[in-house]
């Protein structure tokens, strides 16, 4: 398991700019996470699984879209591991697969929802139009 997927592991660590080895397995990130209930993998698991190169399950997990980027984990982590940045990095590495999840302007009207803030649409467009 150790060196499996090591290039993806390095890529994710590089994007996140954090060092998962600093983690002392206290679980405060998961304790503090407001989106925990909707997650299949908890923030502390992200840290550990990325460090171990066990990244495949994370790429397909619900968690990466459940994370609110509220940065509570980042704020409270006693070791400055910053799990939110790692989750964001996994999310980015999924999004950056070009063409895999294309969002075209034409598709947007069908997705529109009255309660959806406009900013969310703009940012979704930015993220998914590549």
């Amino acid at each position, binding site marked *: 398991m150790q060196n499996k997927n090591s290039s993806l592991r390095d890529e994710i660590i590089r994007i996140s700019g954090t060092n998962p080895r600093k983690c002392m397995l*206290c679980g405060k990130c998961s304790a503090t996470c407001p989106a925990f*209930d909707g997650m299949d993998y908890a923030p*502390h698991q992200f840290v550990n699984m990325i460090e171990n190169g066990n990244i495949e399950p994370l790429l397909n997990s619900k968690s990466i879209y459940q994370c609110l980027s509220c940065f*509570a984990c980042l704020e*409270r982590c006693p070791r400055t591991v910053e799990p939110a940045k790692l989750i964001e990095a996994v999310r980015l590495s999924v999004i950056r697969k070009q063409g895999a999840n294309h969002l075209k302007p034409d598709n947007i009207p069908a997705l529109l929802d009255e309660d959806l803030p406009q900013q969310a649409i703009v940012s979704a467009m930015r993220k998914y139009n590549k």
Partner: protein
Amino acid sequence: MQRIGVFVCWCGSNIAGTVDVKAVAEALKNEPGVVFSTDYQYMCSQAGQDIIKNAIKEHNLSGIVVCSCSPRMHEQTFRKTAQAAGLNPYMVEISNIREQCSWVHKDMEKGTEKAIILGKAAIAKVNLNAPLTPGESPVTKRALVIGGGIAGIQTALDIADAGFPVDIVETKPTIGGKMAQLDKTFPTLDCAACILTPKMVDAGQSDKIRIFSYSEVSQVKGFVGNFDVTIKKKARYVKEDLCTGCGLCTEKCPQKKVPNEFNLGMDNRRAIYIPFAQAVPKVATIDADYCTMLKSGKCGVCSKVCTAGAIDYTQKDEYIEEKYGAIVVATGYNPISMDKFDEYAYNQSKDVITSLEFERLTNAAGPTAGKLLRPSDNKHPHTIVFVQCVGSRCANCAEKGKEYCSKICCMYTAKHAMLTRDKYPDTDVYVFYIDVRTPGKSFDEFYRRAVEEYGVHYIKGMVGKIAPEGDVLKVQASDLINNKQIHIDADLVVLAAAIEPDKSARPLATMLTASMDTNDFFTEAHPKLRPVESPTAGVFLSGACQGPKDIPETVAQAGAAASKVIGLLAKDKLMGNPCVAHSNELMCNGCSSCERVCPYGAITYSDKEFRMPDRTVAIRRVASVNEAVCQGCGACTVACPSGAMDLKGFANNQIVAEVDAICK
């Protein structure tokens, strides 16, 4: 010109096997200053030493070079030999032709050649050696202990027991420290007061121990064996010699709204107070910040009720000057502030408390008389959550917590949890931990008892958030074993706050020129081999000022520090290391470069008058080295731009002579 004798040792075949010792002795015969040269099978043997002694007398030698094993082996031996023959021991130089020649080389020719060069280097050095005499300084046979907690008390008792007078300086009105605030002590659960107060009484009654309570060290001068210390005795507005400690004034004082620091502000005391019943010295103190008499001149109740006439509103701070031979630092620790840990709601709810506050809540002499009642509504809590590592093991968050493990929290939390379950079986007790660290005699057994016999719920995971809601505290935490986020409605939350050195430690370290680490813990002279000594000679460390410690460790270290002090005070005179730095005042610029690199604070400056070449007199600032304090590292010699600083025994010209001899 020196008259040098050269003595080449065979060391059996150890040297002679690879080095032609006869050839070495022969070659060195012609070196400048050499008047005698010989070889022998075992120079360190009695017979070998006799050869040296006889040669010293016969040839009137002024210096000696022994080509033999490492100076780390026999330098002392040969110095003593020389001394026995009337030669200054520092006129001996060892040329290491065993460890650094015969043992690492195989070729006889090359080995011999190298041995000759090493011998020449030693001869070149001896030519420039001067007799050195270790400086002597007297020892003041009195010790100062700064801090009157269990560390300071134990150190003082042990020193006094050996017959030396010792003074304790304590900033609080009483000695006792943190231990006096504790309820029970792990792992045996004896009551802290029961084991501490007899020691306090012993210290108070010992004719060898003086206690300066409500006092602090304001100035330290001098060096090992000869410290001049100024102690500031703060005005307590009560004459210590008259006060009987009856406590009547503390009952009658009309100012009732003073937060009681002994109970960590969980109840109030009067403006005149005795911190606790077993205080030593048992003398009242007036808190000038709250006393109406001192603030506005109206009141005077305490003075009226005091039958001993001990109240003195005109008392002033008093400065006492005393000489000491040794100083022990025992300034202890404090829990860190919880203000910055917003997520634990310490400032929002009275029912989130620190472990030290919990101690007071369960202590029979505490604000609730020992009943576990929660501070907000005095109700009995049924669900209690303990959070470990609050502020400990925090990387890169210096403004919030500490990077180190505070060491004592695992054990006292186990103790708190166990005692709570024992006294109140109707409570649910949860302990959230990252790791349970219990290395210590009977420590792990103690923790296991809390789990196995008392049913404390230990959950691996950290608490992420505590939110006060109505009269419960919503605790949101990780359960890492079950990979769950769990929610508990707690009545009381106890935070195991990290501990940090007392704030007084840093200014004190500056006064003592003792070094500190980045966390403000005092640094030991050697982390393994000299754990109770500071690098500054004559300054010793006791207790948590050196690092987090529990009571057994503190007492052990206090005893160790005391034994070091006793060892020092038992001497009448201190013999220094004669290889110390010295400054040539004519060349000194007074620029302070040397002072800044000296790890021992051995360098001081004074203004001196000098006759200048143009016959005028100028006053210049020049450095001088305290030989009793200098350890001879030589950092100053290179820092000095003018070369005014040199090191005896390793002088510039001696080292250069060695370089020259080697490179010739």
